[in-house]
């Protein structure tokens, strides 16, 4: 019982102490914020520098490129490399042609893949049916198959079907490569739309088709865009099948064409950096557009199943 009066006396010094502690905490928080922000800036620089270096090399003159010195900014700013890859290009064709081929393959893949994956995702997310689980397991397992295992049989089939050296053959293969993940990702978007919305439409007399188009589809559309962009990027970046299926240089896609800059007599780094920049731009734009949704789709598709 002797401690009770003792408390009364400490009242004032405690307040002082508290104030001092608050001040220290405030400084410490400030120091912490500065430290965190500087680490963040460092990570930013490390992540960005290689990309920046690609773009800046593309706009430097050759004497600023081929030097052992560090020239942080292209002070001799030039479009000559860009001009050269667009007019002369590489392997006998302008870079435009390869960009066009890549775009055809990627857009074709997306067009077919979007329809197929929407149908299948609706089936697994909206219906309970026999074989549904097996289908989902199959979706998971086929994603483990490495492209190299499919390379040889698909190469032989493509030759047999007369699709060798045709962009159509690449589109077909890319649809196969991107579809399992597309379905997997899209089904979480379909499942997240409450079924009661469609049921309400049914009660109002809408057919399944109408309910699908007027109710479900608009709500799933953003997810479909994210999934399509993912397929687009996969097809746009695909190298290994394009290497073996396209033998004529007029059918090369960008990833294949880039390989031809590495010549016997030294590499034209200005030209290759200009081409890589051109190839990277659409992907970066898409990434920034759907950044948030893509992450949630990837993680949800993977984590929650």
């Amino acid at each position, binding site marked *: 019982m002797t401690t009770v009066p003792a408390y009364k006396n400490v009242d004032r010094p405690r307040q002082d102490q508290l104030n001092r502690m608050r001040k220290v905490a405030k400084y410490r928080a400030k120091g912490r914020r500065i430290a965190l922000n500087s680490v963040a800036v460092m990570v930013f620089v490390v992540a960005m520098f290689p990309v920046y270096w*690609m773009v800046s090399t593309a706009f430097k003159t050759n004497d600023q490129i081929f030097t052992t010195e560090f020239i942080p900014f292209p002070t001799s700013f030039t479009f000559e490399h860009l001009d050269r890859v667009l007019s002369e290009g590489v392997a006998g064709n302008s870079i435009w042609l390869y960009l066009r081929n890549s775009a055809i393959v990627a857009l074709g893949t997306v067009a077919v893949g979007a329809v197929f994956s929407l149908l299948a995702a609706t089936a697994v997310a909206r219906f309970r049916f026999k074989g549904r689980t097996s289908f989902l397991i199959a979706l998971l397992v086929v994603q483990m198959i490495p492209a190299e295992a499919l390379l040889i049989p698909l190469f032989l089939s493509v030759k047999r079907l007369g699709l060798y050296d045709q962009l159509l053959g690449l589109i077909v293969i890319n649809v196969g490569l991107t579809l399992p993940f597309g379905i997997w990702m899209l089904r979480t978007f379909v499942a997240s739309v409450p079924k009661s919305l469609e049921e309400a439409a049914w009660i109002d007399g809408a057919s399944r088709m109408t309910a699908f188009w007027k109710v479900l589809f608009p709500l799933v559309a953003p997810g479909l865009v994210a999934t399509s962009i993912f397929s687009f990027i996969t097809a746009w*970046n695909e190298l290994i099948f394009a290497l073996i299926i396209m033998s004529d240089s007029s059918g090369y896609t960008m990833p294949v064409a880039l390989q031809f800059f590495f010549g016997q007599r030294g590499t034209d780094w200005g030209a290759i950096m200009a081409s890589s920049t051109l190839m990277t731009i659409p992907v970066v734009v898409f990434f920034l557009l759907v950044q948030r949704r893509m992450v949630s789709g990837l993680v949800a598709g*993977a984590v929650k199943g």
Partner: protein
Amino acid sequence: MTDTSIARRGGGSASAPAGRPRRSHRPPKKASGLNPKYIPYVLLVPGILVIGALLLYPMFQAFVISFQKVGIPQIRDVNPRPAEWLGWENYTKVFENDIFWSSLRNTLGFAAVTVSLTLIVGTAVGVLLNQLSKRMSTFLIIGIMFAWAVPPVAQGVIWRWLFDAEAGIINWALNLLPDFLSNALFGRADWTGQPWTNEAFSILLILVVTVLWSSFPFVAVSVLAGLKGIPGELYEAARVDGSGSWRTFWKITFPLLKPVFAVLTILSIIWDFKVFPQLYTLMNGPTNREAFNLSMFSYAEAFRSPPKMGSGAAIAVILTIILLVVTSFYIRQMVKSEDVQ
């Protein structure tokens, strides 16, 4: 699961729903005269056809080809010869090949190093993102998004340029080191002309850096998403109980994010096991046999003259089996949590 009648009845009566009692909340059937039972199967037809024809059947074919001899005489356009059955010969030959063992070592070693580095760096950046102010974290996310977005072939090109022997920025930076330090660490002071892309070990080193650089952003952003889902009260309670930040991470953050880490680990393993475009670009095609991984070895066997498709397929089958074994745990886990919903 009452729809067991499908197999028996086939599609025959699909368009004759008349007279069957309808459950009240079903939509009217006039627009599509299809029994709702069959709708999911119809919707799945294109998907199943694509997956079957372009993934499952080729996988089976690859398995068959791995027991056959398939070379020029079998794949030529005019008058091709039928494939010759070899039994296990492709496999025994592959196992006798030194390049196979070095490829296997490269694949496993590369995956082990890169996956762990990616997870460590990515988690650290994810935790950092979570501590930053809103503006700062958006800024950093956009920055790392650039690294993530660069196409694999362009990644290879960029890092090859950074490590260029004459004009590469890495050699320039190494030359900046004080001579005594550089001598003590690496036994040399002048780095100009160091040909990084000539030797297998340094090629793989560049490959680790390249893949790490391009794949830590995904881990970081996923960890951030996971962290956002942890209620703040838990951290408050930990702070009240006097737990330090290291302890808080291992006792609260890590256990709660375990599922996220499991998925990230598996995805990274899958991706890093079959890294191909970056390696292809870094060494300009399948040139340096000692730097091959299994993907590159399979590609080189099957598509460099003389084409040995059978042996290429055997390597691909081995790679697939390794991948399936490594990831089977994950698949089982997913299936368990899956089939209920």
